[in-house]
């Protein structure tokens, strides 16, 4: 059974039945799923969750699904890596990396999309859709294929070929739109209104956003059923940031962890940091910006949940910071070279902001910190490629090898093997 009360407006509190709705009819405020936490608390246990599948669906009672079949490509239960090497580099003794690069389509987007696709099929939609420049598009197309639903994906007409391949392989109807970003954005909203499809991040947004709570659920479970002290979250629309906070609150509300929402740290690219700017200006009004950053997956200049992110930061005594493109690349390299995790540019944003916060003395060296890395570096190799050293190229000769190696790194020395 589902433990939902319906949808509730985050602004005026108006209640609605579960339906493909996302905006309050009265005040145009965003809708979110409301739960009966007392009923969940009476019915849920750590043991039951631990016996569940190795996917986000082990937390099924904290999602708005009923008995409908899941649209599941085995998302979630990704590693929480104790990051001692990275921690040493930053002077942090209890640092963890939530490595969400290893989901089925290589980003955290599989989490919200598995919930949205499940709800879409439950509502009787035959077509699932989204507008995206990469991660979301691939995930929606993959789930559409798994559910054998029709799938329509809108992309900007100048999207790179490699990204198009990562989407097209799943067989969606791909529509490339010419025009500037704002025109394309408005057109997609109108299409969503007119065609009656399941647009995962428009009319299914209240359900879609719920999937991201699993990034809190998993971290708490992996830490032995407790919340970390601080988390760092790469942020675009703000849905991921607010839902991770909500996830920790919900676990406490249903009695699975002690009440302790972590200090929420928000990380943006300096070239698209409207939430960080508002936080620094001490205002609750988000001024939209025109994105200019290599962190394309975070390039949302007018974040729908920006205001709610600011509220979460205030409520949790949280943090916010941004990093330049150079610092993003340095963050990607630092993570890869200390922990063996190749995150996309958004991961570089998380690690870069973590580094800045550590250097500024904003983090306690002994607190438990989790940094979220939400997409795979193989999606954006071009961002870091030019910053990496060229390989040593030699002829097939030992002399050439000895010379070249000594030049690159004199600390390597051959082992002398004695004859006989």
């Amino acid at each position: 059974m589902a433990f939902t009360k319906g949808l509730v407006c985050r602004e005026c509190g108006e209640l609605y039945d579960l339906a493909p709705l996302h905006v309050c009819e009265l005040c145009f405020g965003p809708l979110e799923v409301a739960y009966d936490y007392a009923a969940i608390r009476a019915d849920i246990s750590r043991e039951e969750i631990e016996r569940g599948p190795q996917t986000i669906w082990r937390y099924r009672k904290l999602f708005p699904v009923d008995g409908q079949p899941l649209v599941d490509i085995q998302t979630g239960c990704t590693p929480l890596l104790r990051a001692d090497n990275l921690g040493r580099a930053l002077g942090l003794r209890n640092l963890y990396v939530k490595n969400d690069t290893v989901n089925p389509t290589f980003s955290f987007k599989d989490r919200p999309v598995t919930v949205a696709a499940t709800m879409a099929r439950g509502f009787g939609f035959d077509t699932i859709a989204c507008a995206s420049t990469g991660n979301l598009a691939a995930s929606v197309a993959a789930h559409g294929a798994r559910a054998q639903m029709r799938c329509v994906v809108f992309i900007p007409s100048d999207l790179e070929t490699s990204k198009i391949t990562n989407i097209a392989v799943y067989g969606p109807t791909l529509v490339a739109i010419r025009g500037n970003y704002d025109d394309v954005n408005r057109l997609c909203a109108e299409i969503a209104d007119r065609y009656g499809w399941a647009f995962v991040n428009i009319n299914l947004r209240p359900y879609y956003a719920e999937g991201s709570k699993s990034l809190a659920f998993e971290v708490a479970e992996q830490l032995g059923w407790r919340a970390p002290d601080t988390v760092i979250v790469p942020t675009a629309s703000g849905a991921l940031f607010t839902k991770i906070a909500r996830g920790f609150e919900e676990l406490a509300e249903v009695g699975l962890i002690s009440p302790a929402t972590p200090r929420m740290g928000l990380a943006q690219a300096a070239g698209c940091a409207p939430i960080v700017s508002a936080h620094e200006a001490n205002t609750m009004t988000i001024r939209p910006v025109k994105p200019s950053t290599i962190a394309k997956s975070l390039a949302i200049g007018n974040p729908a949940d920006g205001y709610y992110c600011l509220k979460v930061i205030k409520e949790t005594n949280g943090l916010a910071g941004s990093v330049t493109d150079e610092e993003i690349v340095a963050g990607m390299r630092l993570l890869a070279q200390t922990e063996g995790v190749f995150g996309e540019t958004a991961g570089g944003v998380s690690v870069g902001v973590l580094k800045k916060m550590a250097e500024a003395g904003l983090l306690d060296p002994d607190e438990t910190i989790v940094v979220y890395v939400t997409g795979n570096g193989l999606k954006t190799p071009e961002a870091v490629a030019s910053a990496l050293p060229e390989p040593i190229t030699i002829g097939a000769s030992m002399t050439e090898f000895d010379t070249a190696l000594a030049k690159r790194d004199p600390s390597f020395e051959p082992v002398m093997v004695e004859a006989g």
Partner: protein
Amino acid sequence: MAKRRIRLFFPANLITEPVVYTMGKRFEVVTNIRGGEISADSGWLYLEVSGDDAEIDRAIAWAIETGVRVDPVEGDIIAG
């Protein structure tokens, strides 16, 4: 008759301008304010605009020309 839900963002220099009133006078559209916040240096409004599709397009294009930012109420839809 079509209806569209939009969010207008006003920069400081347009805070005192009657943009919504003028939109309703210049174009065959009905404007209905549903929420918002105005301060001394910026402001935003949720607006429902009803009318013929092409006329709504013209009204929105005019608002953008005046310097107001116009977005769907959902904010940015194109995700990463």
